[in-house]
């Protein structure tokens, strides 16, 4: 039966949840397809995640391998393919809790970086799981800064082989998934040496385990890197190479080759490598970041209408905690952000698709903008969503800390996204490098990409808002964001110029401005997110009820950003102190408005109970019963702990009194 407090929330929805779901999915036919995939996966007991909170690292790993093997079979049965339209729904349904993710990256890197001949040799083996691959880039001593990698591959003309080595401990490959226990092969990134000359980082296919008995190959030391904050299911590994010989043909040679006589030849554009990184970052945003934050909002908001605590009015029943302004102020901005980032993620995907079509036509012009945007957005979205999930966790009081709430594992997993695929600070600085360059170009009248044309028109001004309702006008707040972003970019550029002109070396000047540069990059992305939200809402004219609630969310997202970064908007007087009070008033007024639709707004994300895997967030709201029953299944309650016989009993039987 449905908890009456949740039921009443659903009765008063101002819009059709089903229609919003379909719109979020991109059409009702996609909703149907997604639900069919989810049903097939969740109906299969092998994929159950019910026990995962009770399992050890070894058990999680084993379950992930078992699921991966089973998935292979399942896909065949269902007629799903790796690149079919279902694949993203499969990923969503499994919540990433499956092995061989890096195996897919292994195949993707061979397809992108390998020659036709190499593709023909390796891809069928990998597709049939005759080999299992990984992707070994990061080392103990180096992550995001790839040029610093220390693994070496020296070409030996005599044997026509590359000799791979880990020359020192910091050069050991560290972190690659599937490599600790599963992989038989891996793509290794190493500094290529021919005739004593270093040609930089190149990819090599290296066999690391026997195809017969899975034992390590000669010269290979590999294993699991030990427990992490999350990703218990994944055997992130280490790899040390000692004089490992591989044939010349194992260097991936779509773009360059070492010929038999040692001649190094390079062809084609390296720019395409950026394209791979970009594509990975964009998929990280939608799959690894936005989906978890939507889940966290679903759990926290549903729980906040089931949980009653303290009284708002004497003599009345205890209030739902979502009726407290402070609780609304914690959760509703996160909900608005989940929507905002979902829309910007769609925008990035669109931009990516266009760029891809251009690249097919050998036009690389869109790449710098795409690269800058995907870097900056990966950074701010992963950072905002990580903190959003943590806010959701802490908004659930004590029960949020139980693994059974589902929130701790969402948190520990999403926070890794701030680091992998490029550490966030470094990514923001890449975006700001692009912004400064465009600002300089724009100020000298040169053409710049569309997302940054606003930088050309930096002018002092004042926000025209006259009362708090004016701050519900998208043109007013979008303009404020634009002004703020342009101001931060231009003032940072000016400071950089000043420093350089005063004789500070360029690299030093850059380092001295990095805090501001990162802030400018964030401001730019924040502005684009608001602008895109506004445009998305404007475009959906056909569904008035949904458009109305989306407009409220858009206002909330924008005003929350101004409220929380008040200093940035007040700084040059663009928004006055009096106007800032209007912003605050409008912002706080929106909370109870969105409050009314909070549950329908999370219902629209359409996560099944199994995919939430949370005692607090289930659709029927039977929170306490579920928590109690689930806790009783904990192994700590099933197995007799040896602690009693060994330690507690002697303790209780009064050994101490002898002292």
């Amino acid at each position, binding site marked *: 039966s449905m908890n009456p407090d949740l039921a009443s929330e659903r009765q008063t929805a101002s819009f059709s949840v089903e229609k919003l779901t379909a719109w979020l999915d991109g059409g009702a036919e996609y909703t149907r397809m997604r639900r069919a995939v989810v049903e097939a996966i969740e109906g299969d007991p092998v994929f159950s995640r019910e026990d995962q909170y009770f399992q050890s690292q070894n058990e999680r790993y084993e379950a992930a391998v078992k699921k991966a093997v089973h998935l292979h079979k399942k896909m065949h049965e269902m007629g799903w393919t790796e690149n079919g339209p279902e694949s993203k729904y499969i990923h969503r349904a499994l919540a990433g809790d499956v092995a061989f993710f890096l195996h897919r990256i292994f195949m993707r890197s061979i397809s992108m970086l390998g020659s036709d001949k190499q593709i023909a040799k390796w891809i069928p083996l990998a597709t049939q799981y005759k080999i299992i691959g990984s992707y070994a880039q990061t080392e*103990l001593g180096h992550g995001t*800064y790839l040029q610093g990698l220390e693994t070496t591959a020296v070409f030996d003309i005599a044997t026509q082989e590359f000799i791979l080595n880990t020359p020192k401990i910091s050069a050991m490959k560290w972190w690659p998934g599937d490599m600790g226990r599963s992989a038989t092969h891996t793509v290794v990134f190493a500094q290529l040496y021919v005739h004593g000359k270093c040609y930089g980082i190149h990819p090599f296919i290296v066999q690391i385990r026997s195809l017969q008995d899975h034992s390590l190959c000669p010269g290979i030391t590999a294993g699991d890197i030990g427990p992490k904050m999350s990703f218990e299911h994944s055997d992130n590994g280490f790899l040390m190479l000692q004089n490992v010989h591989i044939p010349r043909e194992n260097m991936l040679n779509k773009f360059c080759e070492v010929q038999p006589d040692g001649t190094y030849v390079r062809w084609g554009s390296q720019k395409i490598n950026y394209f791979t990184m970009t594509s990975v970052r964009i998929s990280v945003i939608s799959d690894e970041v936005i989906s978890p934050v939507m889940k966290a909002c679903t759990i926290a908001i549903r729980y906040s209408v089931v949980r009653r605590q303290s009284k708002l009015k004497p003599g009345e029943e205890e209030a739902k905690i979502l009726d407290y302004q402070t609780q609304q102020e914690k959760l509703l901005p996160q909900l608005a952000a989940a929507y905002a980032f979902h829309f910007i993620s769609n925008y990035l995907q669109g931009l990516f698709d266009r760029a891809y079509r251009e690249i097919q036509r050998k036009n690389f012009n869109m790449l710098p903008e795409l690269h800058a945007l995907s870097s900056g957005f990966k950074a701010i979205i992963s950072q905002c969503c990580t903190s959003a999930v943590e806010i959701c966790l802490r908004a659930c009081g*004590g029960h949020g800390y139980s*693994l059974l709430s589902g929130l701790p594992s969402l948190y520990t997993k999403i926070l890794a996204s701030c680091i992998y695929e490029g550490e966030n600070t470094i990514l923001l600085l890449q975006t700001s490098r692009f912004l400064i360059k465009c600002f300089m170009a724009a100020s000298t009248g040169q053409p710049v990409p569309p997302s940054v044309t606003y930088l050309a028109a930096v002018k002092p001004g004042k926000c025209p808002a006259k009362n708090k309702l004016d701050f519900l006008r998208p043109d007013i707040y979008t303009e404020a964001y634009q002004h703020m972003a342009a101001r931060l970019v231009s003032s940072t550029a000016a400071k950089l110029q000043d420093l350089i002109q005063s004789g500070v070396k360029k690299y030093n000047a850059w380092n*001295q401005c990095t805090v501001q540069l990162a802030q400018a990059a964030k401001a730019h992305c924040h502005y684009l997110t608001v602008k895109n939200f506004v445009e998305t809402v404007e475009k959906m004219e056909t569904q008035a009820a949904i458009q109305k609630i989306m407009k409220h969310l858009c206002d909330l997202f924008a005003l929350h950003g101004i409220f929380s970064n008040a200093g940035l908007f007040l700084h040059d007087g663009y928004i006055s102190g009096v106007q800032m009070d209007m912003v605050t008033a409008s912002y706080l007024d929106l909370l109870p408005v969105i409050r009314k639709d909070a549950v329908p707004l999370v219902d629209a994300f359409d996560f099944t109970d199994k995919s939430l895997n949370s005692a607090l967030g289930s659709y029927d709201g039977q929170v*306490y019963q579920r928590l109690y029953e689930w806790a009783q299944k*904990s192994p*700590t309650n099933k197995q007799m702990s040896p602690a009693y016989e060994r*330690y507690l009993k002697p303790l209780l039987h009064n050994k101490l009194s002898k002292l």
Partner: protein
Amino acid sequence: ATMTTMNPDLRRERAAATFQPELLTHILDGGAERTRRRKEIEALVLNDPDFQHEDLNFLSRSQRYEQAIRKSSLMVMKLREYGIADPEEIYWFKSFVHRGRPEPLDLHLGMFLPTLLTQATPEQQDRFFMPAWNLEIIGTYAQTEMGHGTHLRGLETTATYDPATQEFILNSPTVTSIKWWPGGLGKTSNHAIVLAQLYTQGQCKGLHAFIVPIRQLGTHEPLPGITVGDIGPKFGYDEMDNGYLKMDNFRIPRENMLMKHAQVEPDGTYVKPVSDKLTYGTMVFIRSLIVGDSARSLSRACTIAIRYSAVRHQSELKPGEPEPQILDYQTQQYKLFPLLATAYAFHFVGAYIKDTYHRISGDINEGDLSELPELHALTAGLKAFTSWTANAGIEECRMACGGHGYSRCSGIPDIYVTFTPSCTYEGENTVMMLQTARFLVKSYTQVSSGQQVTGMVSYLNDLSRQRIQPQHVAARPVTVRINDPLSLVEAYKARAARLVEAAAKNLQAELNHRKSKEDAWNRTSVDLVRASEAHCHYVIVKLFTAKLSEISNAAVRAVLTELCLLYALYGISKNTGDFLQAGILSDAQVTQVSQRVKELLAVIRPNAVALVDSFDFHDAHLGSVLGRYDGNVYENLFEWAKKSPLNKTEVHESFHKHLKPMQSKL
């Protein structure tokens, strides 16, 4: 396999420090003698083979619980053997034994025994205290229920007095009334102090405490009518058996109600307690511990992140030069140094509250409770402010360590999960902030009606003087000198005054528009929380600044002054909106502040490692491969990983079970 030499980068850092870390350590400990004694106790624990064990990161939850129980029993015996009885020394000992983690006897030692002392009658103490002291009785404190936490009046467990048998009948009438979370309840305890709504003669008399036996002495099996168990895995706290307790018509004798204050007579007559103001004292004490914990946890995380940042080299600053230490990047300094300054600030705040508490406790015995309400209100807010800040700060430190921060070997995930629940326990932080706000609004109202207020809120007195002038309080010009800590204290004071006044006025406006007081309060609560935060921030800057004048060594004072300035200026730069809107600072000053923050980063940089060395965490206590004192990070990372449970066999059993069958089928 570990190297005994010190990493050259760390050696250089230490040689370049401008002050002696030991002197700063003494200040943090409260004197050279305290440092000596702390290290003595530390050595006692760390050199004791009984307290050695495998790295906890590689153990399952059950194994971790077992290790904790083993060590806790030994700990109790050894404390007595060594005659360690001073609360602070016990705290150190326990903290070294358990490396700062919770342990299953925490509630027995920290709540069950003290509650017996303060709330049991002499007769009850005779029955329970010595057995509990000797651990024949292990008790816990069962307050929180599934449905209720911070809001105690909402608890649903009932204790109904039956005069016929002279017993209380305890019941958990609903699922939500099941006791949930108490530490040591799941597996360890055989008794619990249970908080329940007392019913006698057909009337509810509110919450009272009862001693309830829950497990059979001898077999440790749950007693009939008792359902008890572990609440399952959590975010951290693996050592702790947080438990649930459900009671069905469970009878206990009348004499098991803690009756030092309130009583139920044999015929069921209820006798009211005299005063419960004293319970404030316990809360103040526990919250002061959390403030101290915020400081220590953040210090540990800073130690790890800063040492690692001095060891790690990455990318290039200057073309053609070797990769620089990541601590040389401005963005890295900007992440870590304000947190380092914060850790110091919180240390001094924690020490201040503890001292004030001890001073007032003396007064309490003499009957002077006048300062208690303010201290109670202040510690609620400071508990929330420091735990929120430290919580976010620990995560910042972890992120600043890149990928390796995410590995458990960094130790930071463990610090985080152990610390983060303090945002919720002992009073949920938002609720705490609102308690402080209630006091602030009350003080503001007093000032408005012409009375004077004292203590940390005395700045509100100035408001009434300004009210004569028609202009907004904030328009009062403050001449802020950004290199003078005292002047920055004034700036923070002005901000707090402005936000308290704004919240109080908004509250009044809501009250004028609406009927219910509670509704108005709720609609102002975001403003009220902001006011409390500003007040706490002011108090912290003030206390940090005040500490500077107490430091006699010039070199130490100089470096702490830099940290104090950084703390204050960074706080301004993160809240420029408040200072600009109130007219406390001009645009130009705000720009100067952010410029000065960056200059201070460079000033503090040479002392960064020495400043974390001064926290003086032993490697064993730090529990971090990245934060090792000798800086030999990479080789030890490798050694650590080899011990991972997944590496127990070279070929994992999953290969034979799953991979091989699949490969052979394809």
